[in-house]
C-alpha cells in the first residue's frame, strides 16, 4: 500500500514539492508540445517533399516558439451572441485535465510526481473530461460548424474510449495493478514487454488512440474541408493556443500510456530511464504522424460503426481470451 518515495516526499515542504513538480511537468509538456508541432510540420513536409519551417533557429526549430509569441500578442476576438461564460471558460476546461493527467506518469524509477494506485483509471477519467470543454466551446461559440464539430468530436471520443480502455485492461489483467510505476517495474522485472503477450490489445489501443486524439484518418471532427476548424473555429490568440496545446498534449499522453502499458516504460539497458521513456514515446508519436500524412480520412458513419462493430467486440474478446488463458497456465 505504501507508495515508493516520490519527488514530493523528497522535499521538506509538500506544498513546495507540488508547485515545483507541477512546474516541472508543465515545462516538460510545453517543451515537448513545441517540439512535436515542429516535428509534425517537418514530417509532413518530408512526406510531401517540401522543406517545412527553416527560418527561425537551426532547421526552423524555434518556429513554434515564435508562433506562440505571435499568438500571445494577437487580438482576442469575441464574436457577437456567444454564450459568454461557456465561451470564455472552455479553453481552460480543456487545458487543465490534460496537464493534470500528464502529471501522473513515471518518467523513471522514482521519478514520478503523483504515484497513485489507480493512476491508470485517473488518466482515463481526466481524458474523459475533455468532452465538457469541447461542448462548452461548441455550444458557446454560436457557430454551426463549431457546434457540429463539437457533437461529432464528443461522439467519436466517447465511442473510442471504450476499446481504448478495454485494450489497456488486458494489460492490467496480466500485471494485476493499475499503478503506472508498478506496471513499468513489473515489465522490467520479468524481462519482457507486454506488447509481446498482448499484440492484439496494442493494435486496438493504437487505433483507438488515433481516434481519441482526433488525428487522421479519424479527424472528422475537425475536417477543415467541411467544418472549418471544428469546435474551436471561433477562437483566436491564446484561447486557440490552449486548445492547440491540449490537442498535442493528448497525442503525447496517449503515447505515454502506450509506452507504460505495452513498451515497458522507462525500462531498458544502458541508457538512463528517462531517455528510454522519451525514445519510446517519440517512436510512437512518429508512427502517428506517419499514419496521419499517409491515410485518407474516413467518413463519419464508417468511423462509428468501425468502433462499435469491429473494435469494441474485438477488445472484449481479447480481454476474455486473456482471462481464459491466464487461468489455464
Amino acid at each position, binding site marked *: 500500500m505504501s507508495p515508493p518515495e516520490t519527488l514530493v516526499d523528497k522535499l521538506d515542504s509538500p506544498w513546495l514539492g507540488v508547485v515545483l513538480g507541477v512546474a516541472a511537468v508543465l515545462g516538460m509538456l510545453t517543451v515537448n508540445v513545441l517540439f512535436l508541432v515542429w516535428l509534425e510540420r517537418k514530417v509532413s513536409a518530408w512526406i510531401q517533399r517540401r522543406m517545412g519551417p527553416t527560418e527561425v533557429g537551426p532547421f526552423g526549430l524555434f518556429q513554434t516558439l515564435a508562433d506562440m509569441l505571435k499568438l500571445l500578442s494577437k487580438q*482576442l476576438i469575441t*464574436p457577437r451572441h456567444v454564450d459568454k461564460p461557456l465561451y470564455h471558460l472552455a479553453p481552460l476546461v480543456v487545458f487543465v485535465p490534460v496537464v493534470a493527467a500528464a502529471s501522473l506518469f513515471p518518467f523513471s524509477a522514482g521519478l514520478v*510526481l503523483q504515484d497513485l494506485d489507480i493512476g491508470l483509471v485517473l488518466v482515463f477519467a481526466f481524458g474523459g473530461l475533455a468532452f465538457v470543454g469541447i461542448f462548452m466551446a461548441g455550444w458557446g*461559440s454560436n457557430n*454551426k460548424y463549431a457546434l457540429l464539430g463539437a*457533437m461529432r468530436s464528443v461522439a467519436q471520443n466517447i465511442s473510442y474510449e471504450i476499446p481504448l480502455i478495454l485494450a489497456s485492461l488486458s494489460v492490467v489483467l496480466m500485471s494485476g495493478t493499475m499503478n503506472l510505476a508498478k506496471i513499468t517495474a513489473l515489465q522490467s522485472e520479468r524481462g519482457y514487454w507486454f506488447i509481446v503477450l498482448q499484440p492484439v490489445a496494442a493494435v486496438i489501443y493504437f487505433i483507438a488512440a488515433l481516434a481519441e486524439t482526433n488525428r487522421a484518418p479519424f479527424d472528422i471532427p475537425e475536417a477543415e474541408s467541411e467544418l472549418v476548424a471544428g469546435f474551436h473555429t471561433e477562437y483566436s490568440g491564446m484561447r486557440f493556443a490552449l486548445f492547440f496545446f491540449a490537442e498535442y498534449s493528448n497525442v503525447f499522453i496517449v503515447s505515454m500510456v502506450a509506452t507504460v502499458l505495452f513498451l515497458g516504460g522507462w525500462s531498458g539497458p544502458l541508457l538512463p530511464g528517462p531517455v528510454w521513456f522519451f525514445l519510446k514515446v517519440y517512436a510512437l508519436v512518429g508512427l502517428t504522424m506517419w499514419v496521419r500524412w499517409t491515410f485518407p480520412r474516413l467518413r463519419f458513419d464508417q468511423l462509428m460503426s468501425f468502433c462499435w462493430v469491429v473494435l469494441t467486440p474485438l477488445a472484449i474478446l481479447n*480481454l476474455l481470451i486473456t482471462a481464459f488463458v491466464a487461468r489455464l497456465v
Partner: protein
Amino acid sequence: MDPNYAPYVSVLACSIFVLGLGAVILILNYMLGPRRPTREKGIPYESGDEPHSKPRQRFSVKFYMTAILFLVFDLEVVFIYPWASKYSDWLKDDAFAGIAFGGMMVFVAVLTLGLVYEWKRGAMEWE
C-alpha cells in the same frame, strides 16, 4: 496529512495551479493584444459568407444512441477495473478462480446482448 489521500490532494493542488496559470496566460494575451472590434470580426465565421441559418439546429437522435451505448459500456468497464486488477490473485485460489471468470463472462455476455440489440435495430446506421 494522511498518506492515504495526500497524493489526491496533490492532484487537486496541481489542477488549481494549472487553472490559475491558464487564466494568467489568457489575461496576459488580453493585455498584450490589440482591441479593435469591428462588425465583420463579430459575425460567426462561415468562410466569408454571411451566416444564413440559425447556428443551433437540432441534431440526429443517433447521437443519443451512441451516448447510451457509451454509458453502458463505460459501466461495464468500471466493473471490469476491480476485477482485472484482482484477477491474477484470485487465480491462486482454485475454488474461486472459476467463479471470478464465469461471473465476469456472464456479465460481459449480457451487456454484449445490448450492443447486438442496438445494432440489429439499426441504431448505429448513420445515413
